[in-house]
């Protein structure tokens, strides 16, 4: 196998192996840093994981940006994702999905998540969801006060449609 002449003794890049449905077992899908090339990838897989590669395809995904008022300074690093699909000489089947989620306290997590969602809704709803006719009751009470004081006529208005 041919590799580059430059020797890198302390490689500093992280790759993640992604689970991809519909991908044949002789293919593997990785997310890689944006500055890594196919040649680097081939080298990396051979020297770190002892896997020989037949071919590599790469693509860059653009991540949609959050709205301007929320956008923070770290966002620039997450604008693009580079992924590579690697054809392996020997097949590798991605391990099966976890079925039993109890080691991760899934019940507690889901309940806490729902609670957080409800709390968020409550905080940002401006009292609309909690109205229960309270606002309209206040309006009616105010009108009655004005009528008693003689500042408002009792003629009922036609409903606006």
């Amino acid at each position, binding site marked *: 196998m041919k590799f580059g002449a430059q020797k890198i003794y*302390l490689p500093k890049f*992280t790759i993640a192996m992604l689970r991809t449905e519909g991908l044949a*077992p002789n293919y593997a899908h990785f997310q890689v840093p944006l500055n890594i090339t196919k040649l680097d990838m081939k080298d990396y897989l051979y020297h770190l994981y002892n896997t020989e590669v037949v071919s590599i395809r790469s693509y860059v995904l653009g991540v949609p940006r959050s709205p301007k008022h929320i956008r923070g300074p770290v966002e620039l690093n997450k604008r693009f994702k580079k992924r590579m699909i690697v054809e392996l000489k020997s*097949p*590798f089947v991605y391990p099966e*999905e*976890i079925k039993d*989620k109890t080691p991760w306290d*899934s019940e507690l997590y889901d309940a806490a998540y729902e609670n957080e969602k409800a709390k968020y809704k409550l905080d940002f709803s401006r009292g609309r969801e909690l109205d229960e006719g309270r606002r309209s009751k206040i309006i009616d009470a105010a009108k009655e006060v004005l009528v008693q004081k003689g500042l408002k006529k009792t003629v009922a208005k036609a409903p606006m449609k």
Partner: protein
Amino acid sequence: MSLPLVPRAIRSRAIPTVTTSSATQCARAFSTTPANAGRNSDRSKLRGISALHRTNPKAPLLAMSKIPLPQPVLDKAKHTPIITAPDHGLWDFFPTKSSLRTPEEDASHGRAWHVSELRNKSFEDLHKLWYICVKERNVIATQAHERDRLKPGYGDFEAQTRDKTVKKTMSGIRNVLIERHHAWTEARRLAKSDPEVDLSGQGRAYRPAAPSFAAEPVEQIAAKEVATEEASPAVEKKAKETVIPPPTPKTESTVSPLS
């Protein structure tokens, strides 16, 4: 009735005259196309042949239905089961052989290596440790994606703590190696102008003017060392294998002993 004003030449050739009287004359086909139409004067052999429209009167008809096409096996039960080799390199992404490590497993790690501990280690050991750290970070990154997708519950905090520990070890290794590089560069720089140091590569490099520890002068000590090397060839060979002489000034490389 007068004939239309048509030139005499055309009238006689193309248009049948109204004045034909004989009823036995055969009814000629009326056509304005010249008689030599269809016979190309350009002698083009590729005329009329189109790959797009598949017209080629000279090509033989291909009977595709005669060739039996391979039929795909759609029934998954009949597919040959693919077994991953137990020693496949990519299993290093899954140390527990499952797609996710539990939070307990993720949290079962000690503290990061201290710089003071790493200073005692050789380059080979540090190099190996570096690769272990890199591969561990890959495992953590893979599991972060899987957890993001699956959302099984808690586990992010444990994984992030583990990642931070690994990163701290890696930064320690890097700092130790940088320290050594600076020390080497400085030593080299000072040695060039130091009269007590001989960087030629022949014999001992440090030749102090007045050694306080030995009664014999340095040259004699050096000569003795050379004599012992030459005396025993086996010892000499072993010594040669283990001792790497310093580079000569001409062929001196700028690469540090780190590599």
